[in-house]
């Protein structure tokens, strides 16, 4: 860990301004990912801006009947919130499938969206990584890739986004609310929030320099059955090999987002449209352009089988 300066932001605007004035600055919320990465010198901010004390820890009903979740709402608080459990069960289930109780107590809504990949080559600073050191090459390609991405990847990077929560947010059509250093706000649909790697895998989100997440807004409840199915080698405390976040209506239509397969929560309009036809049809759309490695080719079959089980579960419980 390199030496850094630290400030407690007085306001959202001030935090954004401070971040834009210092190109090496980072916001810190729960710190469950950032501090680990700083210890390994994968992240080397010279300045940390603490955004915990800005009143962004509230969950409110919006005028449209949706939910506005403050950026600093802890994962535990969000998962256990009564309205979330009742109307956005997918989100609650995805949250408790992630990390551990201790981590969820600390981790925040905004921080969860911004967590970085768990690709082991990203974590080992002796290995080249285009995400960690742009242009240095990807040592994961051709290496150990069982956990890595099968779709949306590029010649420069095959890492996945590790979040469970984000998969639920994607299926729920969440919108990321931000404030920019000039004080203007904007709303970024979750579909546009995470970037695919292309030839710049170090650019992971739509956020501009200094732009700060203030909230994540959910539209009014979509109804239907909410299922989050996380598939992993051990029963807890493991990142998903594959996860399915699905909202399925009584008539069999619905939406599906997939985790563990891509650099962002993976959702395809054509797959949603095909969902009523069953898992095979939906999966064909979801995985249409997949480029797996020999180690992770199984994920494609696993997505289809898991989705089939999820659909079956909705039929079992009318």
């Amino acid at each position, binding site marked *: 860990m390199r030496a850094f300066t630290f400030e407690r932001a007085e306001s959202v605007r001030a935090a954004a301004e401070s971040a834009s004035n210092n190109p090496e600055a980072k916001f810190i919320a729960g710190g469950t990912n950032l501090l680990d990465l700083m210890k390994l010198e994968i992240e080397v901010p010279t300045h940390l801006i603490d955004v915990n004390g800005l009143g962004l820890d509230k969950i409110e009903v919006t005028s449209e009947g949706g939910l506005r979740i403050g950026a600093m709402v802890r994962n535990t608080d969000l998962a256990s919130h009564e309205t979330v459990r009742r109307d956005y069960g997918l989100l609650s289930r995805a949250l408790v499938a992630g990390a551990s109780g201790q981590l969820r107590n600390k981790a925040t809504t905004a921080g969860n969206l911004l967590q970085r990949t*768990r690709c*082991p080559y990203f974590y*080992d600073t002796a290995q080249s990584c285009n995400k960690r050191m742009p242009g240095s090459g990807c040592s994961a390609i051709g290496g*150990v890739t069982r956990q890595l991405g099968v779709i949306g990847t590029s010649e420069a990077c095959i890492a996945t986004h590790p979040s469970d929560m984000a998969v639920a947010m994607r299926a729920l059509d969440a919108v990321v609310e931000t404030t920019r250093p000039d004080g203007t706000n904007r709303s970024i649909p979750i579909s546009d929030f995470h970037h695919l790697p292309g030839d710049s895998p170090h650019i992971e989100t739509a956020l501009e320099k200094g732009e700060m997440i203030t909230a994540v807004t959910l539209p009014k409840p979509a109804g239907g059955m909410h299922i989050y199915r996380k*598939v992993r080698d051990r029963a807890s405390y493991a990142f998903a090999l594959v996860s399915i976040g699905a909202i399925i209506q009584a008539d069999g239509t619905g939406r599906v987002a997939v985790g563990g397969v891509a650099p962002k929560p993976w959702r395809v309009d054509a797959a949603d449209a095909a969902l009523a036809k069953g898992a095979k049809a939906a999966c064909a759309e979801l995985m249409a352009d997949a480029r797996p490695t020999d180690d992770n080719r199984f994920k494609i079959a696993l997505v289809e089988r898991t989705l089939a089980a999820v659909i079956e579960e909705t039929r079992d419980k009318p």
Partner: protein
Amino acid sequence: MKFEKPATTNPIDNLTVVGKPIHRIDGELKTTGRAKYAYEWHDPDIDYAYGYPLGSSIAKGRIRSMDTAAAKKSPGVISVVTALDVGKRDLGSKNTANLFGGDEVQHYHQAIAIVVAATFEQARAASALIKVDYAVGEGVFDLSTATKDAKKPKAEGGTEPDSSVGDFEGAFANAAVKLDATYTTPDQSHAMMEPFASIAAWNGDELTVWTSSQMIDWWRTDLATTLGIDKEKIHLMSPFIGGGFGGKLFLRSDAVMAAFAAKAAGRPVKVALPRPFLVNNATHRPATIQRIRIGATRDGKITAIGHESWSGDLPGGQPETAVMQTRLLYAGENRMTAMRLATLDLPEGNSMRAPGEAPGLMALEIAIDEIAVKLGMDPVEFRILNDTQVDPEKPGRNFSHRNLVGCLTLGAEKFGWNARGKPGTKREGGQFIGLGMAAAFRNNLVMPSGARVKLDARGDITVETDMTDIGTGSYTILAQTAAEMMGVPMEKVGVHLGDSRFPVSSGSGGQFGANSSTSGVYAACVKLREAVAQKLGFNSQDIEFANGEVRSDNRVVPLSQAAGPEGLVGEDTMQWGDLEKTYQQSTFGAHFVEVGVDVATGEVRLKRMLAVCAAGRILNPITARSQVIGAMTMGAGLALSEELSVDKRRGFFVNHDLAGYEVAVHADIPHQDVIFMDETDPISSPMKAKGVGELGLCGVSAAIANAVYNATGIRVRDYPVTLDKLIHELPEVA
């Protein structure tokens, strides 16, 4: 004392303290955080410095030069010591890879520098500033291709790599029912909770080291060799160890670097190895490729059994002895085993809990299940039919005590084995349900073990031995032994362990620790009893020690009085005769497992586990049970998720942390039962006990794999049994 003849009745047989379910005497220290582990020793008057290591970023080659200028100028840095500075060192007798020193790089994350600073954070930050210029060498990292150049290793400790009895090839060719299958086990990590850590302090030419070691004398000896100093100048302490599993048997780089760093810094230095170093800097259990051939008659008698194993290690290393149990476990007139060793430039392979038997049984006990299926026999019945009471390679040699059949029979009854269905036929909800079982087998080893037992004027007993407690319960069973021998309650016994000033013990490893070290305390107590008797002028033939008193004929003297103001001391080392040659000494068991396999995803989840163990006298059923359930848990990880993933281009284990190397977590472990057979083995030791700490691991992973087969009808021969090896053969999801 030398144990040369089977034990007769002795004071241990009173079983007033030994054999009782007594809670750990160090339990309160541990649960309240007061048990000091290596890194935690702290004297407020000492200005400790902190060392942070740098590991090689290549797997093989040479260091041309190192630029430490920026690191030395970094805030708080006191000193930087590089492998080039200290030069090539003599290799410790038990080490294969160099720990620290010289320009040669033998494996990834080999220690090449230690940065010493006023704080841990400063040392860590500075370590990243060292620039290394390597001459990268060509390495061999893939066992599957390296086997073509594998060689017959030299015999180690009387163990020949090959064995042959009768005409295996002929008998196998002519067998009515045959199995010929190949199995693989991956590289595996000890993954203990406490990392390697040492504090080194010099006082002139004398060195004190607080560390985390299973074997005090081995470490002290090899540290002296590596540093090039007299062993007598080293005082080594390791009273508490946060897990070792064989990873802490042999001297490691933290102790070496701490010694050099403390010398350079001119003050005591603390060094803890970062978590990734546990994988690529230290040792691991090597991967194996095992071919097993079994031939049997139609009525299920084994006529031919062959087991070959290939593993790899650095030059000068050893094979993973995965065939050893096959020489002893089942009958059969025609037999062969063979081990071949390939050269690999991966980190050093070495002992991990039940070396040899654990990976050997992972393969053999699937093979036994497979041949039973081919025969249409129940696998429990098949094992009973092929039991042997003699060493099958040397039929004149008996087992000291062998009750494998009892374990199998009792286990099958208690577990409800009869409820097992045909493969792939039992479904509950979204899971296929299956039962599996396997035999457990682990040899019983003994090691010389010394102890000093003191009696003071209060009648208190103090045991001193360099024995270690790696979480196993050594403190408690040694106290029980001394209490039984001296006729005092547990509260009157204090135990001090893990200090090189104490008599050299067996240490902890190879499940030899409990039986050997309690026998050492037994021997020292015999000496102390003689000293008491002599002092009181008692005839030591009819003397009785009980209730804190010594009794002979009509005289009764409190121990405190017998001790006198100066106290009395008994010290001795238990030596072993040739009973382990004349008899085969082993421990036995049976594992039964129920699994559920997700119909859609192929995720395997355990539902129930039972181990039945026959391991001589159980010294303490609480600590013994903890050993067995811990081993069953480890076996679950090895069966279902643990695998060090090799980057075969760059030559290192990629998943070098506890997020990537997945040991079983609480949610993976279901209800576990352990049953100990009520038995003693007087040929093993005066304690009539045997090892049990590794038995619980042996066979359990195969029982899980066999249960997966029973659940799904899919036979996986490559560990770990992960869902990607199942889903392509599972039925389509509706």
